[in-house]
């Protein structure tokens, strides 16, 4: 299984994502520039965190006009795995692969800390290695992580079990329905604000992000 980590101008969690796959999971992973037009040969693509184009205008708004974006859409359409974390999640909503939008945090402040998430759906290719309703501790670091969608969209998300991760105990940003991560209807596109790649080594404070990587890699082997 071969994984692409897309590098946009202003991406800065690209290294972390690469290292999580490469050094920790010993997986086959490559950086791909936003200027490329094709993702042929890859089985999964990751849009990492950071501040693409400075997040000027709106988070993720300018990145979605990059050359690479049609190729990301194509992978999603073909049922391959697409993961967006933090800025990557914001880009996925801006490009319409996931519904809703991410607003400024209710506190109006950037927030960096480790929060508790509840795993709500273990049937996606990203979460099979978690227990149903498992509580996990994953770091967040964002200024615009407040998930918003209209009522009917939220209802649909809930009915289809598209809410994959929910903040547990404390909602750090004002997200509606405490949403921390959602997937598309088919389940092959996941966007989340928390950073699983920051929770893959004990020395850095915990490994609750590892099952996500293991699930993804396992899904690739089975596919």
């Amino acid at each position: 299984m071969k994984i692409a980590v897309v590098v946009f101008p202003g991406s800065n969690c690209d290294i972390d994502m690469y290292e999580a796959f490469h050094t920790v999971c010993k997986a086959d992973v490559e950086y791909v520039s936003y200027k490329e037009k094709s993702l042929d040969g890859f089985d999964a693509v990751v849009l990492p965190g950071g501040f693409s184009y400075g997040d000027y205008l709106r988070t993720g708004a300018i990145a979605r006009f990059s050359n690479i974006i049609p190729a990301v859409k194509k992978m999603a359409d073909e049922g391959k795995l697409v993961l967006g974390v933090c800025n990557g999640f914001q880009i996925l909503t801006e490009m319409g692969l996931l519904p809703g939008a991410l607003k400024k945090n209710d506190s109006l402040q950037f927030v960096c800390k480790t929060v508790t998430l509840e795993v709500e759906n273990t049937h996606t290719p990203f979460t099979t290695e978690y227990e149903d309703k498992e509580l996990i501790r994953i770091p967040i670091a964002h200024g615009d992580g407040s998930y918003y969608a209209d009522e009917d969209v939220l209802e649909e998300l809930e009915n289809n079990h598209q809410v994959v991760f929910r903040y547990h105990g404390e909602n750090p940003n004002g997200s509606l329905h405490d949403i921390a991560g959602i997937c598309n209807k088919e389940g092959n596109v996941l966007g989340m604000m928390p950073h699983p790649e920051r929770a893959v080594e004990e020395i850095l404070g915990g490994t609750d992000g590892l099952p996500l990587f293991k699930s993804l890699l396992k899904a690739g082997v089975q596919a």
Partner: protein
Amino acid sequence: MKQAMTPEEIKEKKPYLDWSLSEREYDYICDHLLHRLPNYTEIGLFSAMWSEHCSYKKSKPVLKLFPTKGKRVVQGPGEGAGVVDIDDGQAVVFKAESHNHPTTVEPYQGAATGVGGILRDVFSMGARPVAILDSLHFGELKNNSTMRYKMEETIKGVGDYGNCMGIPNLGGETTFDPCYNGNILLNAMNVGIMDIKDMEHGDATGVGNAVMYVGAKTGRDGIHGATFASADFSEEHATQRSAVQVGDPFMEKLLMEACLELILNHREWLVGIQDMGAAGIVSSSAEMATEGKSGMDLNLNLVPQREPNMSAYEIMLSESQERMLLCVKKGHEEDVKKIFDEFNLDAVTIGRITDDGRYVLHHDDQVVCDIPVVTLTEKVLEEKSAEKKPQRIIDAEQSENWQPNIESAGQTLKDLLNQPTIANDQFVTQQYDSQVRTDTIVGPGSDSGVLRVRHTKKAIAMTTDTNGRFVYLDPKVGGQRTVLESATNIVASGAQPLAITDCLNYGDPNDPEIFWELHQSCQGIADACEILETPVVSGNVSLYNENNGKAIYPSPMIGMVGLIKDYDHVIPMHMQKAGDKIYLVGK
């Protein structure tokens, strides 16, 4: 456009006095250095380059006290940042810088551009920045909504810039004291890591080699920021101030990646590189030419400009952010340009290296400056400063030691914890990304931040410490104590102290009492560094921290870095489990 004054008019009307150049200095320039009257552009360059901020003319004798050599020191003071060997061909690179005046006036942008500036100092050495620390000192918060606003904006400015750059913030300090009511201190420190073989220098050599300008365009931002930083900050100055410098961290991120790409993968094209900090193009180019014992010939019309009709004076003194100056081997200008093109950044050849030691500037087909380059950098008229021990210290020495009368230790403890300086600073640190780059072993809130050196078992520990009140009470002991505090912070996390950087924040050095404090406290710092074998490898001086004639406490900030050979030895600060014994060590 307004016609610039003629050299004769300058002599008569003395506009340079407003730019903090004294009459004595002006006469010295005319009679001993140029043997003629300088023109408008030239006198502007002198006033910026001879400011304390660029020339250290007041503080130089004091800086000489610092030990700067050591077994592990690869590069001491004199370059963008200090470089210290951490074995295996690797080095840790660090420096601290103050941005006190801009932050006092415009907290958000002042803090943001303070962080941006110190990052450029580190990556221009060829190091990848891996951590930021920030030392913040505000006035009293109680019943002061303006100070609260300034604090919030300062923190946001530090956070937004570092977060966007993707460099974790590993620590710092936040204190509150009425002495900073009219003059906030923002000291930012940056730590980078590199392979020693990749080290770059800020020099320009080789006749015919190109001087290339890269990064953001030049506008009329912060003109005379350097002299502004060197003058007493009073209400009067607030209205004279020129446009605020605005930070663009996205641009800086691109600039950093492009410069590192050039340095790490194409170093054979590059002769030297330096960031444009205080006094913009003039200070970077004149310093590079001086370092390389060269001359330089620049055409200012080639400088990328954001605004129309900028004068030579404005182009040279602008402090627009996110710019760097390179010296590139002749014939490789296009190669270098291609790298910067990839990142959508300007890269323009604005001049050439010469061998006659002259600093020649062309603008609109005229020569607007033609002077020996060393007159700007090395011929600065040194000033002897008067010193006097303050009466309050003499009085204190003669009075009996004060004994606190504590009736309820519990209440005193509660009162202490209630002080904003001592209270939990999560409010600040949660606004900073402290984990990006996934190397953070210990983040903010501990004695020191600890960072893994990726792909090794090594880790580095870092801390900043300032204790203005203590230094005010006893400058020498206060200086020693500040270094010791840093060292104990480093040791407490399991690391061996390596070296320090500093920011020397003081009031007006023309006041003999303040100069005495500066001298004494630096002696204290030097003594402690000597004993602990932690040489000073970089630093920065910020004088004239006054508001309406009232100086801040003498507030030297120490930034220390230590080495941990095996990160399994990192010791966390928190209590581990019930039943563990507690020891008090020392005497």
